[in-house]
Every structure is written in C-alpha cells, then in structure tokens.
C-alpha cells in the first residue's frame, strides 16, 4: 500500500535516532558508489578495447565539476565501509547491540577523522592541478581531440 514517494518522504520525516540516519547514509552511499562504479568499470575497460575513449574519459573526470565529485565519492566509500563493518560485527555479536548508540558515534567519528584530512589533501591537489592547467582548466574535453590510436 505504500508508495516509493511516501517511503522516501517519511524516511526523512521520521524522527529516528542515530541508527535511522546511519541507514539512510548507508543506503545512499551504497547506491552512489554503485552508480559511479558502473560508469567507472565500463570506462576503464576501454583502456583495453578503445584506448582513445579511455583517455577522453580520464580527462572528463578531471573536468572540475566532475573532479570535485570525487570528494563525496571518497566520503561515500569511507562511510559505507566503516558502517558496513559496524553492521557486520554487530550481526555476529548480538550481545554487543546494547552499545549500538556508541557504535554509530564511533563510526561517524572515525569517518570524520579520516575523511576530513583526506578531503583537504584531495582538494589542494586538485587546485594545484587546475592552476597548472592555466586558462584551459574549465574546458570540457572534446572527443574530436582524442583520435583513435
């Protein structure tokens, strides 16, 4: 009887506690990674099948609006990984469930501690790269510039 729209709306409206938001974050991050992964896998395969297309894609990934997306991707992978491990541990050690509140806190904490410096490093590297590229930095790569090898 419930629709997708209702489920999504109420998932946000429901005043759940830490576990609820962990679930929301886990699901979104998982799906986001999968979306990226699908593109990434097909594109990487091009390195063998159509190397010129691969090179074109690599440059698209360096195009600033897309390159910036790497930071949330990193966040997604790190959070999803830590939370996934948390869930797995607790699934096999049910007696630890009483520490669940604490476990979500630790997960978020660990995530932030590791992610923030990484994000800063990634961001700085990107800026340096763009500076290096000069005026062309915002130029979207054109396929015609990548002739078949």
């Amino acid at each position, binding site marked *: *009887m*419930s629709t*997708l729209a*209702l*489920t999504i709306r*109420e*998932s946000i*409206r*429901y*005043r*759940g*506690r*830490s*576990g*609820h938001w*962990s*679930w929301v974050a*886990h*699901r979104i991050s998982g799906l986001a990674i999968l979306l990226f992964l699908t593109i990434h896998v097909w594109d990487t395969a091009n390195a063998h099948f159509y190397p010129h297309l691969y090179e074109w894609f690599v440059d698209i990934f360096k195009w600033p609006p897309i390159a910036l997306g790497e930071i949330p991707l990193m966040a997604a992978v790190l959070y999803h990984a830590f939370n996934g491990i948390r*869930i797995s541990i*607790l*699934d*096999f050690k*049910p*007696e630890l*469930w*009483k520490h*669940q509140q604490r476990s979500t806190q630790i997960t978020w904490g660990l995530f932030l501690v590791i992610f923030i410096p990484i994000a800063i490093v990634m961001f700085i590297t990107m800026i340096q790269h763009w500076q290096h590229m000069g005026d062309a930095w915002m130029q979207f790569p054109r396929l015609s510039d990548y002739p078949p090898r």
Partner: protein
Amino acid sequence: MQVNLRIRRFNPEKDSKAWWGDYTLDDVSRNDTVLDLLNRVKWEIDGTLALRRSCAHGVCGSDALRINGANALACKTLVSRLSSGAATAAIQIEPILGLRVIKDLIVDMEPFMDHYRSVLPYFINDSPPPADGRERLQSQEDRARFDDTTKCILCACCTTSCPSFWANEKYVGPAAIVQAHRFIYDSRDEGAADRLKVVGDTFGVWRCRTNFNCTSACPREIEVTKAIAEVKKVLATGEI
C-alpha cells in the same frame, strides 16, 4: 501550561483526504500523558476524534501513535518529555505508518496480525510432559535467554517504525520476529525449525537493515534489533 495539539484527522465518511486538526488545551500538567490530552480533545472538544486505548498505562498496546514524528504509546509519553519547560508546547500526533488508516488515528491492524500469526507464535512440543504430572523443568539461565522477547504486547510501534516495512508490507516485521525469537530461544520448545523457515524466507529477517527505529520505539524496552540479530545468527549457524 498550554499545549497546541496538531492531530492528523481523516474520516472516510466525510473527507477525501487527511487534514490537520489544531486544538489548544489549557491547564495541562507536565505529568499528563499524551493519551490524557487526546481524551480531553475527544471528551471536551471534538467527540468525533477516533483512537484506540484501553489500559492507559502502557501494558495493552492499543495506542501506538506517531508522536512528534516518532512512534510511541500515547499513554506512556508524558508531556514533560515533549516540551522544553516553556509555558507552551506543540505536539503533533499522526497514525502509525505503513498500515491503512481507517479513521483518524486508527489503522487496520490485520496485516500486522497476519504477520504475527505467520511465525507460528505458539509453543510447540509434542513430546509427553514429565510422567509425574508436573511442570517441565527449565534452568534460570535458559529462562533468561528469551525473557526480553516475552514482554511484547503487540503494539506495532516497532514494525511501523521500520522503513523496510513502510516500503514493503510483506516484510514480517520486527514484532513477528520478536515473537519467533521468544519461542526459538525457549529451551522447552521444539518448533524452531518450522519457525525459522518462515523468518528465514525472503520476507523474513533478511529485510531488516539494522535501522534500529524498532528498538527506539519499543515501549516495553525490548532489544528488538538484538533479537532479530540473534535469529539471523541462528539462521547463519544452525545453532541456538
């Protein structure tokens, strides 16, 4: 103090869709329960308001509602827990999610009860009881293993707080799993294999994404997610 109550209303005989009713109550004590407030609305302001209630002290499971966004029993939720200490407070009441609303705060419990009944929620032991005509013996330790899940009053706070259930009402839901757990972990019971068939199926425990809303919502303070995890563990290892 004063309370501004917003109640989700729907009368199928009149309304084509649900609406919010606003009611202001004066002279509310901080020790009043939400059920007291709803009763006041029903008795003093608008008799058409429909809700279920019986025991008024959290043991019958009638008045599971969504109070300020999260599931709880109205009769176990005190105004003091919902207000900051200011002279007025706003409280919002909705029916629980995932079950069809029949009228106002009343939902159709049948799908919930069907799930409950599906897990064989009764003691199964066909071997003859002790020859002396007395009770089967059970150690205190064995009794303790399923104590938590015997407390369930089938209020549905848990099942209707679970996003997996909102998304798909075929999921048996935490309450049914709690009931299954109560018997699976009872050393006297012999029906575990059959029960595990039900809760181990596609719409059984595997739909649980360890979201924990169920545990937070349970008015009996049952460690619902833990019980689910224990059942998953039995399914994974074949050992109780």
